[in-house]
């Protein structure tokens, strides 16, 4: 299949875009990556995702797929004969993976964002506590899902590894910029080691942004937000 049959519209700092790219790498799918300038969205983006106007968008033979977790499941199904399975094969394990993926998006990521949002010391402390509580829950989920193996998905990275792991860059940036330890060796030993393995994985390392570069971007974003120029 020609490279141009598959396109990804993305932005390098986005954890959601990473999910799509990791899935495509696992399936050895060649694609054209188009970096979006989020200050000024491309015609292609607006045409491909008119409802949300957001990245990532996967365009496969001119047909767009939107929403990062939906893209991951699509990649898994469309290229099912190529490479390992991403989503667990057992329906119950699938439901568990989808549950925790929804949890990280609905609860963890907002808490992570609000740590650095500058809403005051009280709000920051509450957000940190909420995030750590969430990580403790995920530690338990990790033990149950991995069953002694290196990843949530078992011996290879799977759906929940991708869903949660894509946030690690931002977790590290938040730790650095706010001088706080979030992923703790003592409180969440399983996740702590899993994080290292995830970031080193062949499907991940080329698309995980460097922490320093991400931290610089975070500073620029914070300034834009403060000046009201970014939603």
């Amino acid at each position, binding site marked *: 299949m020609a490279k141009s049959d598959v396109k990804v519209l993305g932005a390098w700092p986005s954890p959601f875009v990473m999910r799509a790219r990791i899935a495509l790498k696992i399936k050895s799918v060649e694609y054209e990556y188009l970096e979006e300038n989020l200050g000024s969205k491309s015609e292609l983006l607006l045409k491909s995702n008119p409802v949300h106007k957001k990245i990532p968008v996967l365009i496969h033979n001119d047909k767009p797929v939107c*929403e990062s977790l939906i893209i991951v*499941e699509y990649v898994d199904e469309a290229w099912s004969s190529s490479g390992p399975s991403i989503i667990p094969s057992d*329906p*119950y394990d*699938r*439901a568990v993976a*989808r*549950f925790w993926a*929804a949890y990280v998006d609905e609860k963890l990521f907002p808490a992570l964002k609000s740590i650095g949002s500058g809403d005051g010391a009280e709000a920051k402390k509450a957000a940190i506590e909420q995030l750590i509580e969430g990580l403790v829950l995920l530690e338990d989920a990790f033990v149950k899902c991995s069953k002694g193996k290196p990843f949530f998905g078992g011996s290879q990275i799977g759906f929940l590894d991708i869903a949660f792991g894509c946030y690690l860059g931002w977790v590290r940036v938040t730790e650095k910029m706010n001088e706080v330890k979030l992923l703790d060796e003592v409180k969440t030993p399983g996740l702590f080691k899993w994080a290292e393995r995830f970031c080193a994985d062949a499907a991940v390392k080329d698309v995980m942004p460097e922490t320093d570069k991400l931290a610089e971007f975070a500073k620029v974003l914070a300034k834009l937000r403060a000046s009201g120029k970014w939603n």
Partner: protein
Amino acid sequence: MADEVILLDFWASMFGIRVRIALAEKGIKYEYKEQDLFNKSPLLLQMNPVHKKIPVLIHNGKSVCESSIIVQYIDEVWKDKAPLLPYDPYQRAQARFWADFIDKKMYDTSRKTWATKGEEQEAAKKEFIEVLKTLGGELGDKPFFGGDNFGYVDLCLIPYYCWFYSYETFGKFSVEAECPKFIAWVTRCLQRETVAKALPDEKKVFEFVSVLREKIRVE
């Protein structure tokens, strides 16, 4: 060995109704356990410790939470009858996209049509109608979101219909006047026995919403 299927649910929950329709479509026998959301049972807290919410499906002792995850689980386990999601990966992605759109947009917007007043309520009404129009655009001239057959997206959306009377009464607007095609789709869905039986009476929902409004002191 027969499957043991239990549903922890609340009669008026549009999320719970989704699961009831899915179970009915598949012809699955289950035990329905009504939950008191103001005084949560130990079983609910044990089966959904993270969110403490309904619906929860308990299948042979193992709990599945979150309505859209439960419906997909049901579709995958009881896969030989009445498929809810399409077979084609691209169509599946589209179905999941619109179910996700419904989850992101319907609940909060619709809630504000009865739980707020003044400018906030007016803004919510406008946004709610916009959401319905966007969904109407996706439906187009198809009989169902799934095409010729009732499917996943239809199932995710139709439970909201029993709350429409409450939205319209408290919000003072008419969905039929604003989105007539949408109501045509509703009528087609209600012709299905599984849907008609799963939706509670809209006047009962209205009484319940009236009580809720008093609890949160809207007026």
